[in-house]
């Protein structure tokens, strides 16, 4: 009986906590000083993950960017990332189809995330990285 009460309480609490953590870390490139634009909204994730390098170049008149993500944690991390592109005036590129992409980062591994601007108007970008916290995150933000 006692166990059943405990079990039910746990179930009740579990059923109610369907608001996932969607904050993470992000980097924005406005100039070469990307370090200043580095933003950590989720300190727990910020300890386990770092953005160590940002490189940009022009490929076929399109901005091409590579962001190096390095793990500071011994276990695998299940992450999602999304690039967003902005034009010269800082307007977001309309109809920008860059979905959240899933990424498995192994312990203490580095990975380069590459993004290509959708149009030649796109000059700056931001990259957001977040952790996959729960199954309930699937469609919610």
């Amino acid at each position, binding site marked *: 009986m006692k166990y059943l009460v405990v079990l039910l309480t746990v*179930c*009740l609490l579990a059923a*109610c906590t369907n608001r996932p953590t969607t904050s993470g870390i992000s980097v924005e490139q406005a100039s070469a000083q990307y370090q200043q634009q580095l933003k950590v909204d989720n300190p727990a994730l910020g300890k386990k993950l770092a953005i160590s390098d940002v490189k940009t170049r022009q490929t076929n008149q399109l901005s091409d960017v590579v962001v190096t993500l390095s793990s500071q944690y011994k276990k695998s991390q299940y992450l999602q990332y999304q690039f967003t592109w902005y034009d010269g005036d800082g307007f977001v590129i309309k109809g920008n189809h860059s*979905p959240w*992409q*899933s990424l498995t980062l192994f312990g203490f591994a580095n990975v380069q995330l590459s993004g290509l601007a*959708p*149009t030649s108007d796109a000059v700056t970008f931001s990259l957001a990285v977040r952790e996959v916290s729960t199954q309930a995150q699937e469609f919610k933000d």
Partner: protein
Amino acid sequence: MNTVNTTKKSTLKTLSGFALLGLSALALSGCANKAVVSYGDAQAVETTDINFGSTDLQKVASQMTDSLLASPVVGTLTANTRPIVFVERIKNKTSEHIDTESITDSISTQLLRSGKFRFVDMGRVEAARKQLNFQNNDALVDPTKAIAFGQQVGAQYMLYGNLSSIVKSNADKADVYYKFTMRLMDLKSGLVEWADETEIRKTREKSTFGW
């Protein structure tokens, strides 16, 4: 002494009985059985099941577009002109039903938006012919303003591809591997100017907790 103990025990039993009842009621009414409709993020990662889903479609389309736009050959092709492309189709060689036209739609839309390519749509040839027939043969239309036949331009390049899968499963685990290959062929010479492939691996395991 014994009676007191028994009374205490029975009170505890009753109390926990009430608690159980209350909690069950809460669990059933509060959180468990509510139908909630809400809007979600169309760009979010979707992992409802192991089949080909929206995230796979978006990933395939964006990776193929990026690869095509960044390739040096395409850089040369699109340096001074916007090549005319027609999308043949993506052959679905998987065991699932997948709307491959949706993938080619996404890819051609993103390529068009990049401003590097132009497309002809073979799927709408009959509709265009019908409209031109109407313009040229119907007494309602001013003949001087009708668009004459024989002015359309043909495609220079053909975009086509394959989607294949390997599926494996046992009692506890299912694994699916998708491989998407895409090619751009020069219709004049028959040469394949660009090709790339992207892979997706999805696994489903029985989770230890949860229901």
